[in-house]
C-alpha cells in the first residue's frame, strides 16, 4: 500500500479532511461557548438589577441557563443542531430547550451536517473499504494468490496478516490527524480527566468500528472473483449501515412508539393540570381543599386574617401540582424517546453504524441522556429560585394583601446556575448495549473472516 502510493494519498486526504472539519467544529464550539457565557452573564446581570418589585413579578422576569458542552463536542456535535441550547426558566411552567442551531439554518443544511463526527463515523469506513476491498481479489487477479498458495501459505495466516497490516496502516494514517486534533483540543479547552477518559473510550470504540469494516471488507474480497464486484458490495453495505439503517430504524421506532406532537404534548399538560390526575379533583376542587387546610392550619376563618400572603401560598401549591404534572409528561415523553432509541437499535442488524453513532454522541456528551441530565438540573434550579421568590412573597405579605417587595440584594442573592455534567461512567453505562452491539459485530466479522480464510481458493 505504501509503495503503490495509496497509503500516502489516503494519509494526506484523511489528515486534510479530518483536521479541516475538526478546526471548523472547534471554532464553532468556541464561538458557541463564548456566546453562551456572554448571554448568560448579561441575563444574570439583568436579573440581579431588576430594582424594587414584587418577588413573583421578578420571578416572571425569568432566567436563561445554557448547557455547557464538553470539549469532545468538537469531535461529535451529536444532537446539538436539534436540541435547544438554552432553557428559559420561569414560574408555573417547565419549558423545553430552545434556540437550536438547525432552526436558524436553511433547509439545505439539514440534508448534510458535515462535521468531524460525520467524517469519523461515515467517511472513514469508506477509506477502510478503499484500502481493503481488493485485498484478496487483486492477488487473485494478478495471480500472486496462486503463488502464495503453492508456497504452502495458509489462508488463515495470509488473511490475518493482511487484516493486521490493514489495521496498522489505518492507525498510521489516523495517528498524525489524531495527534494534531489532541493538540488543538488541549490548546482550546480545559481538558479534565473525565474528558480524557471519554476520549480514550471513544478512540477504542472507533477502532473496533473500523476493525469491523476491515474484517468485512477482507471477507468480501475473498468471496468475489473481481475487485469491482467486491467494491460494489461493500459500498452497498456502507450505504445500508451508515445511511439507510438509521432512517429505517427511526421510521420503525416512530411506528412502534408514537410520540405526541408539541401541540398535543402541551395541551395534555394543560388538561391534566385543569382536570387533575387520578382522583385529585379538578383545579377548583383542589384549590378549595387547599384553602380549607390553610385556614385550619393557621386557625383563622378568613384568608384575609392569615399572617402570611395567601396568594403566594396558593401559587406554591398550584406550582407544586403543575410540576408534578410536568414531570409526569416530560418523563413519559423522554421514556418514549428512549424506547424509540432501543427500537432503532434493531436496525443495527443492518450494520454497526447506529451503535457507533450512539456511542460517539454519548461519549461526547451530546445525546439525549446528557440533554436530559442537563434539563433535570435546570429544573431543580428553577425550583430553587422560584421557591426563593415565593418564600419572599409569602413572608413579606399577609392575607390577601399583595404588597411584598424585593430588592437588588434579594435578586443578587440567588446563586448562579452551576451545572456539573455527568461522569464518563454515566456515559459508558448508558451506551453499554451499543458497545456490546459493536463487539458482537466485531466477533461476527472476525468469525466470518476466519471461516472465509479457510475456504480461500486461488
Amino acid at each position: 500500500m505504501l509503495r503503490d502510493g495509496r497509503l500516502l494519498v489516503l494519509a494526506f486526504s484523511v489528515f486534510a479532511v479530518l483536521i479541516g472539519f475538526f478546526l471548523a467544529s472547534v471554532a464553532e464550539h468556541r464561538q458557541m461557548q463564548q456566546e453562551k457565557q456572554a448571554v448568560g452573564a448579561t441575563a444574570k446581570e439583568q436579573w440581579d438589577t431588576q430594582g424594587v418589585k414584587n418577588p413573583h413579578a421578578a420571578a416572571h422576569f425569568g432566567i436563561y441557563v445554557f448547557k455547557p458542552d464538553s470539549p469532545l463536542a468538537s469531535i461529535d456535535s451529536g444532537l446539538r443542531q436539534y436540541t435547544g441550547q438554552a432553557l428559559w426558566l420561569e414560574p408555573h411552567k417547565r419549558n423545553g430547550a430552545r434556540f437550536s442551531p438547525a432552526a436558524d439554518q436553511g433547509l439545505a443544511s439539514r440534508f448534510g451536517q458535515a462535521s468531524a463526527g460525520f467524517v469519523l463515523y461515515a467517511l472513514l469506513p469508506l477509506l477502510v473499504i478503499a484500502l481493503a476491498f481488493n485485498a484478496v481479489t487483486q492477488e487473485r487477479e494478478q495471480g500472486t494468490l496462486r503463488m502464495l498458495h503453492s508456497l504452502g501459505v495458509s489462508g488463515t495466516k495470509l488473511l490475518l496478516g493482511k487484516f493486521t497490516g490493514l489495521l496498522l496502516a489505518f492507525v498510521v494514517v489516523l495517528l498524525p490527524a489524531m495527534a494534531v486534533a489532541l493538540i488543538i483540543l488541549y490548546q482550546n479547552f480545559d481538558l479534565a480527566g473525565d474528558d480524557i477518559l471519554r476520549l480514550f473510550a471513544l478512540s477504542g470504540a472507533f477502532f473496533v468500528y473500523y476493525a469491523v469494516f476491515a474484517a468485512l471488507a477482507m471477507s468480501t474480497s475473498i468471496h468475489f472473483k473481481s475487485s469491482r464486484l467486491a467494491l460494489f458490495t461493500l459500498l452497498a453495505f456502507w450505504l445500508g449501515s451508515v445511511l439507510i439503517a438509521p432512517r429505517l430504524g427511526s421510521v420503525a421506532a416512530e411506528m412502534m412508539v408514537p410520540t405526541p406532537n408539541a401541540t398535543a404534548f402541551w395541551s395534555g399538560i394543560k388538561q391534566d393540570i385543569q382536570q387533575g390526575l387520578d382522583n385529585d379533583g379538578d383545579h377548583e376542587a383542589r384549590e378549595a381543599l387547599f384553602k380549607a387546610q390553610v385556614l385550619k392550619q393557621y386557625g383563622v376563618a378568613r384568608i384575609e386574617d392569615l399572617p402570611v400572603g395567601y396568594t403566594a401560598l396558593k401559587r406554591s401549591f398550584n406550582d407544586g401540582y403543575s410540576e408534578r404534572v410536568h414531570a409526569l409528561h416530560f418523563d413519559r415523553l423522554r421514556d418514549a424517546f428512549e424506547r424509540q432509541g432501543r427500537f432503532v437499535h434493531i436496525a443495527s442488524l443492518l450494520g454497526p453504524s447506529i451503535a457507533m453513532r450512539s456511542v460517539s454522541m454519548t461519549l461526547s456528551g451530546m445525546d439525549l441522556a446528557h440533554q436530559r441530565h442537563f434539563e433535570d438540573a435546570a429544573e431543580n434550579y428553577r425550583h430553587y429560585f422560584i421557591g426563593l421568590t415565593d418564600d419572599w412573597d409569602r413572608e413579606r405579605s399577609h392575607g390577601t394583601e399583595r404588597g411584598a417587595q424585593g430588592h437588588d440584594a434579594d435578586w443578587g442573592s440567588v446563586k448562579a446556575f452551576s451545572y456539573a455534567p455527568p461522569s464518563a461512567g454515566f456515559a459508558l453505562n448508558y451506551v453499554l448495549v451499543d458497545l456490546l452491539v459493536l463487539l458482537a459485530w466485531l466477533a461476527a466479522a472476525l468469525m466470518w473472516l476466519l471461516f472465509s480464510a479457510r475456504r480461500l481458493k486461488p
Partner: protein
Amino acid sequence: MSPNKTLLEARQLVVNYKNHRAIDTLDLSVPAGCVYALLGGNGAGKTSTINTFLGFNRPTDGNVFIDGESPDQNPTMVRAKVAYLPENVALYEYMSGLENLRFFCTLANIRLSRQHAHDLLVNTGLQTDAHERRVSTYSKGMRQKVGLAIASAKQAKVMLLDEPTSGLDPSAANDFAQRIRAAADLGMAVLMATHDLFNAKQVADRIGIMKAGRLVEEFDAHTVAHDELEHKYLAHARGLL
C-alpha cells in the same frame, strides 16, 4: 534423495468440474530426478492435473500423492515440498526481484539473508543489475528466473511447471530448459505441462500426451524420434487417433 523414489503420483485420478470431466482415470508417476512433460491441446487436462497436485482441485475419485502424502489431506505440508511455476510468474509489481524473493520466502517460513537471495538470483542467471529493480520492468523470462530462485530457496522436492516456456524467446527457453534439467539432475521430480514439443524433447525424460482428460500415449523422451512425437501429438490433437 533416492533417484528412483516416486515423488509425484496419480492413481486412477478423476476430477469433475460440475458436469464436465477434466481428468479421467489418470495414472501417472514421476520419480526423483525425472522430468515428465505433459503434452496436449487446450482443455486436454494438463493444467487440471497440475492444479490437483497443488491441492487447488479436489479429486472426484482416485488419489494424488506428493512424496507419499496427499495434498488434499495435508495441503500446507505438501505444498512446502512443491515449487510451482505458472506460465506467467506472478510477482508483486512494486517490489524488486530481490524483495519478491525474500517476501515469498518469508511467507513460506524460509529465512533468507540478503546475500543468499542475491546468490540464488545469480544462480538462475538473472543479471545482477536487475536484482534491485522493480519487477514491473522485468521481461517474462526474468520473472521465470525469480520463480526459479523461489523454488531453489524452498529446496523443493517437486517442481510443477505450467507452460513455462510459452512466450519466451528461443534463447531464454533454452536457458530455462537447461536450468530445469539441472534441477532434476540434483534429484528433483519435475512435471511440466507444455505445448512446446521441442522443449519437451529437449528437457524431459518421459513424455505423455493427454486428450480429453486421459493420458493416451507415453514415450521415453530419449528414444522417441521428434517426427514420431510430432506426428502422434498432431494426430491426437486433430482427433485422428
